[in-house]
């Protein structure tokens, strides 16, 4: 890196410009990653935080996919699942969207209706009670012991616990008996949260007309999640691809500009390997500096933004995208390496033909 480091210092303006581009792209990618994770968490945290490893859905019609909004599991099927060999626990959940009111205030919630002995809520919930997520309690200005109306039914707030949400709405855990009337079978569940153990799940699904998936796979059954997450991931992917192209274009132009110097170095005895290491090292230093600064700025902005928007600030949303940008940047820079290898040292002798 003897020449590379001195080039970085000598051509400060050029490399500062490119470093600024890398910094801004990193800033954008990290902010988008944090926002994607934040929005995703708002959409699915109530599901991912369930104490279960699989969810059982009603089998969809042919050609359709499982869906939280379409799944209806009758009481008989729920009962049958409790008898499946190897299944450690079965917890029926009826979920839907509703409004909770307290005096003049109201807010939208996702209700998760469970049996009286269920261990799924963050605090025990019995008939006539509701356990509100912190966000819902803040919106309503209520605390434990207050009374709220869930879908028109007066319930006492048994506890304010957890920050889980589903489909961008905070969760209200209620008893099955208090679920808002929707016209559907009041004994039916939407899904069954199970610990599958060593159970033969395909056989059970075939027997009982259900479809069982892991909790992670069940997220695609939330319509808004798959479309929202897909769009944001597409934007992130395009940004990463653009960054690789921009960095590749910069280093290609840079290599073309310094071809005469590469020819000199080759003529006086620099091996192609030495020059390639020099060029890759130069790109690595630039990328490390640019992504490091961009990630630090994004982390700072993300910390500020997380008070107002859903934003996740952790290694997966900051360090991982930054590392990915370094790798993709190096891939882009590698496009210029072929030019280095093909520069003819003979051109250093200007008059030779």
């Amino acid at each position, binding site marked *: 890196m003897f*020449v590379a480091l*001195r080039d970085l210092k000598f051509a400060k303006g050029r490399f500062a410009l490119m470093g600024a581009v890398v910094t801004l792209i990193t800033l954008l990618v990290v902010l988008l990653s944090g926002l994607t994770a934040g929005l995703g968490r708002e959409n699915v945290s109530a599901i991912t935080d369930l104490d279960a490893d699989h969810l059982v859905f009603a089998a969809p019609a042919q050609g359709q996919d499982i869906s939280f909004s379409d799944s209806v599991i009758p009481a008989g099927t729920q009962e049958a699942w409790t008898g499946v060999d190897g299944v450690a626990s079965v917890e029926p959940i009826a979920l839907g969207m509703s409004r909770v009111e307290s005096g003049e205030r109201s807010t939208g919630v996702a209700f998760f209706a469970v049996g009286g002995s269920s261990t799924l809520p963050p605090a025990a919930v019995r008939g006539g009670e509701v356990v509100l997520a912190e966000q819902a309690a803040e919106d309503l200005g209520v605390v434990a012991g207050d009374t709220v109306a869930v879908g028109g039914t007066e319930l006492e707030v048994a506890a304010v616990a957890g920050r889980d949400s589903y489909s961008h709405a905070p969760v209200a855990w209620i008893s099955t008996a208090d679920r808002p009337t929707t016209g559907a079978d009041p004994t039916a569940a939407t899904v069954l949260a199970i610990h599958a153990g060593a159970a033969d799940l395909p056989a059970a699904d075939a027997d009982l007309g259900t479809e069982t998936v892991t909790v992670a796979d069940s997220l695609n059954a939330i319509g808004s999640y798959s479309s929202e997450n897909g769009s944001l991931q597409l934007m992130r992917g395009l940004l990463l691809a653009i960054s690789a192209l921009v960095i590749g274009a910069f280093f290609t132009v840079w290599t073309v500009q310094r071809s*005469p110097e590469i020819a000199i170095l080759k*003529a006086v*005895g620099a091996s192609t390997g030495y020059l390639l290491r020099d060029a890759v090292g130069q790109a690595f230093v630039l990328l490390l500096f640019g992504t490091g600064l961009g990630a630090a700025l994004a982390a700072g902005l993300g910390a500020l933004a997380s008070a107002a928007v859903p934003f996740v600030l952790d290694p997966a949303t900051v360090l991982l995208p930054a590392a990915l940008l370094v790798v993709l940047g190096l891939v882009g820079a590698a496009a210029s390496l072929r030019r280095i290898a093909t520069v003819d040292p*003979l051109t250093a002798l200007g*008059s030779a033909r």
Partner: protein
Amino acid sequence: MTMHLNDVTLTYPDGDGRLTALDHVTVHAEPGALTAVVGPSGSGKSSLLAVAATLITPDSGQVLLDGTDLVGLSRAQRTSVRRKRIGIVFQSANLLASLTALEQLTVMAHLAGGVTTAAGERAAELLDAVGLAARADRRPHQLSGGQRQRVTIARGLMNDPSVLLVDEPTSALDTERGAAILDLLRRLTTERDLATIVVTHDRDHLAHADQVVEITDGRARVLAAA
């Protein structure tokens, strides 16, 4: 060490045929002797230098460096020979824009494995030998044409080569500075026992040479022997 070009022929593609740049050329460069190669533009002077520098492989003939034929070596081997045993001074004082005068020399040590204290001292000593000790921290754009050419000469000597190949060292200089450069090459050749080959179009400088070889249409003729 000596460099002998024996019966070297070099051709280039030229339309449907081939253009003969060197036609059975023989040149012997001995240690401590400065060989001047003269000839009109396009006569094959620079081609001769490119062959001697292993930058191009001739169609036939031998390029012997202390008895070892460099023709037929692999690209990596030729690169190694240039790095360790041949110094090259380019026509247009080709220097690296981002390096200081001193670094133009120490980069050679880096190419050879690493910049040591001894390499730094040798670079400083060589800059002093070419009269640029006070300009060691200057970059190329801060040096005059003559000073840049002196730096390239010092760079050519950095790895203690046995052969110094110089391409038109005075082409970008006025008469006075050109003469000074030839004086310097003459002195370094003697002091360091170099086998020096200087390609030049300027016959005013032939008095500095021990041997003069004229090339015309690719054919060499020794005008004055060492």
